[in-house]
């Protein structure tokens, strides 16, 4: 009975954590799908979003209203940051060798992390993130906190919103077109630059939301907080099939659950290493990911 209880508890924890990874993975996958770039700085956008939320909540206290405000502020600020990064650092390198863009992405990532560290209002020390006082809803032996519910619900809502945008709007169609065949999309009159910027904005906004939700559940914010979740979310995107939006969501949940199950049943030290193990496993067994397709390069 103890095993089942532990299992269910970790499943609940995993779903909540996984929804955050899913939000973050979506940004990776959309950007990779559209410009074939692993945006190393993506995890750091999560950190920026978390701090954005931090400042709002620290100023106005924690209520449902201010929480929504924090989300909005964080998402908008990070959307802008995403666009700025894209236009200044990635766009000039669109036709350069891939390795150049990768190196730049690393540079941006480290710059954001350490830039935040030296800026006075953020600083290197962890700050406590203002969050709701935990209210628990025990279901049988399994404990669900209202924060976990909020995290899960908000994430799912955002994922629905994203899916709607991508599949049922002209904008989304344009995004898919540019991902599929950029020159053709351009010839069809799609403003490719704008669509790419929009994709970055969208991904960054989701990362910001993920950051605020993450900080609500694990209420410590510091400049390096985005690195490890970022890596895990990247693995999630690869696991689900890089470039595939449903894949990113699926991958996120799997990563979350794998992590909490590892924490519960094996060791919490190993929980981070599990992500790396899953990455290697996927690359060996099915590199295109669970939902990914093998896309060959046009020769």
């Amino acid at each position, binding site marked *: 009975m103890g095993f089942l209880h532990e299992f269910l508890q970790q499943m609940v924890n995993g779903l909540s954590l996984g929804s955050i990874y899913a939000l973050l993975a979506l940004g990776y996958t959309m950007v990779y799908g559209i410009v*074939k770039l*692993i945006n190393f700085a993506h995890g750091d956008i999560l950190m920026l979003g978390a701090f954005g939320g931090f400042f709002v909540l620290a100023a106005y206290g924690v209520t449902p209203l201010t929480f929504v405000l924090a989300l909005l502020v964080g998402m908008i600020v990070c959307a802008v940051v995403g666009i700025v990064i894209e236009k200044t*650092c990635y766009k*000039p*390198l669109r036709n*350069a*060798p*891939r*390795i*150049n*863009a*990768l*190196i*730049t992405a*690393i*540079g*941006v*990532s*480290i*710059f954001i*992390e*350490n*830039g935040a*560290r*030296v800026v006075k209002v953020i600083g*290197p020390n962890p700050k406590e993130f203002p969050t709701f006082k935990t209210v628990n809803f025990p279901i049988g032996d399994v404990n669900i906190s209202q924060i976990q519910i909020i995290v899960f619900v908000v994430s799912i809502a955002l994922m629905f919103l994203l899916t709607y945008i991508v599949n049922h709007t002209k904008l989304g169609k344009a995004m898919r077109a540019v991902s599929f065949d950029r020159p053709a999309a351009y010839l069809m009159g799609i403003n490719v630059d704008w669509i790419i910027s929009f994709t970055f904005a969208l991904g960054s906004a989701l990362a910001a939301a993920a950051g605020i939700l993450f900080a609500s559940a694990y209420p410590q914010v510091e400049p390096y907080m985005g690195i490890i979740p970022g*890596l895990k979310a*990247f693995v999630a995107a*690869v696991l689900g099939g890089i470039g595939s939006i449903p894949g990113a969501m699926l991958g996120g949940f799997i990563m979350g659950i794998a992590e909490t199950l590892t924490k519960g049943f094996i060791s919490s*030290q190993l929980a*981070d*290493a599990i*992500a*790396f193990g899953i*990455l*290697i496993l996927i*690359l*060996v067994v099915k*590199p295109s990911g669970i939902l990914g397709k093998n896309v060959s*390069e046009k*020769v």
Partner: protein
Amino acid sequence: MKKNIANGLTLAAIAVVFTGILAALVYIGVIDEYTAQILTLAGINVIVALSLNLISGFTGQLALGHAGFMAVGAYTTAVCIMKFNFPMLLAILTSGLVTAVFGLIIGFPTLRLRGDYLAIVTLGFGEIIRVIMINLEQITGGAAGLKGIPSFTEDILLAPALSMLWVFSVMIITIILMSNLIKSSYGRAVLSVREDEIAANSMGINVFYYKMYAFTISAFIAGVGGGLYAPFFGYLNPTMFNFLKSVDFLVIVVLGGMGSITGTVIAGFVLTYLQEFLRFLRDYRLVIYPLLLIFIMLFRPSGLMGNREISILALWQRLFKSDRTQSKVDKAGERQ
């Protein structure tokens, strides 16, 4: 071809003589111990940076975990000389081999694939190695680190000079051997992988094999660099070999020019020296380095030297011969 040989031999001779003089100056105290330390550290950084240049600059595959390879090499040598009483040379070679094996293991699943996975996997590897080193307390001393690693000699007076001699000798040998490899058919094979994988494949080059080839050799050299670090520094701690250290090597390679051995050497010495001098910048260094990377990528991706190497003969003719056309032809021949 003959000009290249003459050039190479001249450079090598200069380097050997220079190293000998430097070491002697250290021994007799003209160069103080602190400066000697910086120079020796620079030499080690150059060795590891060269290994990174091989896989990332010459073969075009970005790797982000070379600090991890260095760590493997460092701990292997430490264990070999402390627990198994290996002679120094054997310990360092063992480090290279052990690290090469790691390279093979992580390279194999990763390099089969198209694209950017090597970067992420090597990044993860670097972190995992750190965690493993912390956890293997019996062998590595864990988070507290490993102290009292014997130096190249027990003679304290001789140690700084001998460290420098060891490191510089290995550095020079690495430069020569790597340069020889690049200027050969095997070097051209890895270059073709960088230039265009599909075309290389169509030229009969087994792209996967040559990625593994470059990566494994790179790991070996990085391991040797780490192996030299252990006796030089005398103390090892897993946090020395973190991601930021890997980035240090990347900055050296990018600044010097991806695909230029000379560039890596120059940048390695300049940056190691600067790092000491700009210590007061501490945290700001972590903001300046990435900005440097971004700026170079955006405005001068070829770095300092591009993919050119230094030619003593060309320099000589530039300075002392006025026949401009002659030196142009020489320069053309040099590119091969």
